[in-house]
């Protein structure tokens, strides 16, 4: 079951991985949620993390932009390198990390404000004052929401449908012009049509951003991602190109999971 990473083999040679996890273990108190995970996340690719409920995939994802800092009993060992710099060193400011590595959550969580303010808030607290309208428009366009909301930017965000709200949350993350976008089951609260729209959007976003997505839905992982990591009980069972993981898995457990025999 032990998997030893081999970054050169997994990722095309000339690409330096944007995020590199080395022997990462995350515990809640004494209970390990993620154990000894090592993997590399390729720039401008979609990496999906799959696995049964409670396998630690959300925990792992949240470690990548230090959102686990808000859980007092969570602690992490091992190293995570973001563009070569240590993510969990003393000198790293978690606030800076989150500006570079954005996040979209499982349930759409727009701020109880207007559509415009939702997108504008991130840039405005980071000191971007000029050209905020352009930035909001650009972000909404990239999130494929502009056409639907252009004439009602100052309406409340809660007037949007669930799928639109989730795209608004994506636009909100994009407005910070991050390098990486983490998505924690972004479609689990959405209907199939909205899900398809978000998946199309991910293909578009891939041209500029690196995406890491946690998903329950194996078809979705197979459809959208370039690389897939399969986690079970906090351990990384298999990591590789999505085609390979789904068609020629190296491990029995992976095969059993992707063919729907458990999970």
């Amino acid at each position, binding site marked *: 079951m032990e998997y030893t990473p081999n970054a050169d083999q997994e990722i095309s040679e000339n690409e330096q991985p944007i995020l590199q996890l080395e022997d990462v273990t995350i515990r809640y108190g004494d209970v390990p949620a993620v154990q000894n995970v090592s993997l590399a996340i390729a720039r401008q690719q979609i990496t999906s993390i799959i696995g049964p409920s409670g396998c630690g995939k959300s925990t792992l994802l949240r470690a990548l*932009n230090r*959102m686990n800092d*808000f859980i*007092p009993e969570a602690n992490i060992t091992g190293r995570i390198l973001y563009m070569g710099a240590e993510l969990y060193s003393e000198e790293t400011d978690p*606030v*800076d*990390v*989150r*500006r*570079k590595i*954005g*996040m979209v*959550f499982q*349930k759409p*969580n*727009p*701020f*109880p*404000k207007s559509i415009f303010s939702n997108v504008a*808030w*991130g840039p405005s*607290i*980071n000191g971007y004052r000029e050209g905020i309208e352009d930035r909001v428009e650009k972000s909404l366009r990239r999130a494929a929401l502009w056409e639907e909301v252009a004439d009602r930017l100052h309406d*409340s965000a*809660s007037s949007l449908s669930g799928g639109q709200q989730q795209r608004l*949350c994506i636009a*909100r*993350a994009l407005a*910070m012009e991050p390098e990486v976008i983490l998505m924690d089951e972004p479609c689990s609260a959405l209907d199939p049509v909205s899900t398809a729209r978000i998946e199309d959007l991910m293909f578009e976003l891939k041209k500029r951003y690196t995406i890491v997505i946690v998903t329950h839905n194996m078809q979705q992982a197979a459809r959208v991602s370039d690389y897939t990591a399969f986690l079970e009980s906090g351990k990384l069972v298999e990591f590789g190109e999505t085609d390979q993981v789904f068609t020629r898995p190296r491990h029995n457990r992976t095969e059993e999971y992707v063919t729907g025999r458990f999970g």
Partner: protein
Amino acid sequence: MTPGNALRRHAIAKAFHFLCATVTWAGVALLGVLLFHVSYSGFMWLDGQFLSSFPSRFPEKAGLNSALWGTLWLITLTVAFSVPIGVAAAIYLEEYGGKGKLSRLIEVNIANLAGVPSIVYGILGLVVFVRFFGFGRSVLAGSLTMSLLILPVIIIASRESVRAVPGSIRQAAFALGATRWQVVRSHVLPSALPGILTGVILAMSRAIGETAPLIMIGALTYIAFVPNGPMDAFTALPIQIFNWASRPQQEFHQLAAAGIIVLLAVLLLMNAVAVFIRYRTEEGNK
């Protein structure tokens, strides 16, 4: 399920409905009777002269000018002291302070403070503000004492409403690279403001009716001038009302009733302002 059983359940449901309605309307009716009685006996004394005159031993010359202004000074200063401190304490406890033993100890203590009899705050105010700090029997000493009295109420209500702000909103804001202060200022406070204002209304209503701590710190019953600053001596509406009600003459009892009407009017006016602000912020949050 037999029909008899269903009938029985319907009967119980109806009885419960009736019971709840009775209790609710009994409360309203009681309040109505009280208001009617007070208005009936005090209404004829309500005029410009009553509002603009100082206390007098002749009922037809007596008024509550000094008490009205004393109460306005007292409440304004009390709110100015207690709301910023109370809200800041609530935010610290909820957003910054840990969830450890110390935090729980503080929480229990604040809840206990809310239940301490007001006369105890009066003694504290007398010792600390009037004597130790040398503020004398001033509006300042009175409002600081009153602030201590209503701080627990404000802190508890503010904490509740800060806690009710969904965690997902905080997470979303943090994930955009916001600092804790930015999250609190832009999201937690605006969302919690309606609840905080409800707490402030309750606290103000308590402060405006309190008499015991004011008597304890020595607010006088006979003041023939309007306070011009926080260091002036003062009286307040409840003290004036109490003073009139304790006199033997029938006319003074009617003056007391008129004073109660003025007190209620001031209270309702303040609450209306707070409700208006709350309404506006709720609209803004949508």
